[in-house]
């Protein structure tokens, strides 16, 4: 009898925690959808807040922290004041750092890190450009090393190359093959779960289309 009782408790607890997991996944999915619909500072802040709440409860999972930081990075691109931008990026950086303690070998976190630096550069392009571009390239190299098939690493690399002056080895022609490579990686990419990072395919297609148009114009 006692045994049955214990088993029942075991089953119940696992059912209960399954249920909790479901709540977690559901909440994450909801918040990701909300983030995907965001476009203003207030929207991004709302998303960041939602992810931050989950991150505080689920302190052993990197995904909510990733999305918190990702929301803040996206938000920072909408802010024009340099000091404000830096403050938001400081917060994003804190969450990347925390996530990296949880999952030190996660390629996506390095991609996100590389995605953050260009926003830092915008505060003071001349003064910060060299330093942060170097750091961004280093982060991308690490992301690729950890997962050579991470399509977002290739997409970001393509955008970096496109925005670099032609005189320094950048430019649209150089970027196109990289966009193509990124797109190829996106075709084969399957996220580990529904809540793992899965952005970038559309923007890559869009960027490639625009780049091809621009080159055709010339």
């Amino acid at each position, binding site marked *: 009898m006692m045994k049955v009782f214990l088993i029942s408790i075991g089953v119940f607890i696992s059912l209960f925690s399954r249920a909790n997991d479901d709540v977690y996944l559901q909440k994450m999915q909801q918040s990701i959808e909300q983030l995907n619909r965001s476009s203003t500072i207030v929207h991004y802040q709302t998303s960041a807040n939602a992810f931050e709440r989950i991150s505080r409860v689920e302190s052993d999972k990197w995904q909510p922290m990733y999305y918190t930081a990702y929301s803040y990075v996206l938000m920072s691109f909408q802010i024009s004041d340099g000091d404000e931008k830096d403050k938001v990026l400081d917060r994003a950086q804190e969450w990347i750092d925390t996530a990296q303690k949880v999952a030190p070998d996660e390629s996506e976190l390095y991609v996100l890190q590389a995605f953050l630096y260009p926003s830092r550069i915008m*505060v003071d392009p001349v003064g910060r450009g060299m330093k942060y571009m170097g750091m961004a390239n280093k982060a991308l190299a690490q992301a690729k090393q950890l997962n050579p098939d991470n399509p977002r690493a290739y997409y970001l690399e393509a955008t970096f190359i496109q925005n670099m002056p032609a005189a320094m080895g950048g430019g649209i022609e150089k970027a196109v093959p990289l966009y193509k490579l990124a797109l190829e990686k996106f075709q084969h990419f399957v996220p580990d779960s529904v809540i793992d990072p899965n952005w970038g395919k559309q923007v890559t297609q869009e960027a490639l289309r625009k780049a091809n148009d621009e080159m055709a114009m010339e």
Partner: protein
Amino acid sequence: MRFLVFILLSLITSSLVAQLSLKGRVLDMKHKPVIGANVYLKGSYEGTTSDLEGYFELLINSKGIQELKISSIGFHVFSYSFHSDSIPDELKVHLKEKINELESVVITAGTFEAGDKKQSMVLSAFDVASTASAQGDIYGAFNSVPGTQKVGEEGRLFVRGGESYETKTFMDGLLIANPFYSQLANIPTRGRFSPLLFEGMLFSTGGYSAEYGQALSSIIALKTTGLQLEDKRSLSLMSVGAGFSEVKTWRRSSVSFTGDYINSAFHNKMFGSGLDWQSDPKLINSTLMFRHKVGESGLVKTFASFQLNQMDMRYHNFSEQVEQNLILDDRNVYANTSFTDMLNEKWMFQGGIAYAYNVDRLDLDEMAMRTTNNGQHLKFKATHLGNARFKWKAGVEWYAHHYNQSINLPSEQVILQYGNNQLGTFVEADWQISPKLALRFGGRSEYSSLIGQSQFSPRLSGAFKTGQNSQVSFAYGTFFQNPQEDYLKVNPNLQTERSSHYILNYQYKHENKLFRVEVYNKTYSQLLTFDTPFSMKPEAYHNNGYGSSQGLELFWRDGDTFKNTDYWISYSYNDSKRLYRDYPVETTPAYASAHNLSLVWKRFVPALSSFFCVTYAVASPRPYHDPNLSGYMQSRTNFYHDISLNATYLTHMLNTEAVIHLMVNNVTGRTNIYGYEFSSTQNKNGVYDRKAIVSPIRQQAVLVLMLMF
């Protein structure tokens, strides 16, 4: 089993309970709404975000005691516990602002900071490296901000009516004993270290921290770059030589090396030289940096450098009316190691040791003079971070200096030497009374074995925020400095020279526009005096000098108004008088010009992937003493004018990144006269002949091609 059913049932029923909600508003201390604050219950996913007016409505799904949390960037987290049975009606929450480096008031009196850490800095490290008139020299760049006087024949920094020796340079907190290349009279020198070695530079024109001593006027604190992240290699070809640099990185360490060889042979042929070189000046400069990360937060930095500087010329000694052979051979080794770590969350520890060795050989015809300076600096500093409002630091340092000069004449040999052990301790506290008001106070005490006396100097500064973008700050301090080596070597029983500073500063900063006005008063006492120059009699030297210096400075920088353009204007007014050296009366010293104006204009042209900088500097006449006239320092030079420019073109060459850099100084080719040398004897008409002191190279252009691999 029944127990389980009970639990299950109670779980279901609890979710059937009617939803409660907590309404409220988030405001800051100034009653302004906080937008986007995260409002949630501790341990729950559920929460909401405050709206554009700061209002929120939080749904409450569970019963019992709850802990409400409200967080927002830049504010302290707010916590509030309540029971679900008694939810407050309308909760008004005032969030307390975090004292944040970016927003809180910063003491700016007497300080110019360069770096990329904070946006609030006045100049970036790049600005220092790219200012045309600076020609890649740190001191040259700081000559374009207020507080400095242009002294073309020296190349050193003269701050607020003070002599060049009154400015000291520190690297990672440690003294650089010989920051400039050794110099021959009236040939301008430059700093030994490239601005590219540093990520942060602080130039204080007065009233600086108790951490620094032995400088009457000013300090420059340089912070070397941290752990390098990328392997890099570069090769530079210059119209004056060649350079190479390499960076190698590992996970926790990095090593960087730079080596330069400079030879002005080509330049002397191209642009001519006012000097009669026997062989063209040569210079070798090499640096080695090692960085290693220790644990979570520790960093060990090691720096080593070697420089060799050689000049060989026929010297037209105007005052004695003779021609002489003059050779300078300057060899310098400077090395330091510093360590920084957090002992725990509260205590930060910094320590370091520096070694400086310099030997100058100066041959003038038959006379051979060899001067050796040997210095060791040891320093420890502990900082207690306490909380964001109150921090304090304390430190102790020891500086040992040995000086030896041997003068070999055909008939005799003279040896002059002395040693000094200097012990310094300092304590300083930073008290952020509110985000609007900050105070820094401390003191420094020093004991010198040579002077045989201990001295105390208090330091005090503070800042008050007068508006969203403006603030007022002040600084006060007293300063001591041992007399220069040239005097101590003859008379080691001299006293310290003294100064005190009072500074008041107003700053307005909005986005990339900055305006600053500063007034100061400086008094000097116990300045060194002597009866006749170069006297070998100890009793010829005294501490009977004194002086004062006051002025007004304006700075305006604007990086917003014109696209891709950044410019700054500096104006300094200085009124200084002193009695020192062999001055018979208190008068304005020869290096001090009353008005200095500098304009720096920079523009990036993306279409050309090029960067341009033009600088214009003007200085009002300087005094000089004309022995043909009665009175002392009664004459004035003409105005100084200089237009310099540089252009940097970023390109791709040989399959790699390349930078082409062109610097041209004194574009108009003007002959600036810094003063006059007079013959020591009268000519047959009873007149002392004079010769103008001018730059040996009136105008020059330097072309650099740098390839990065």
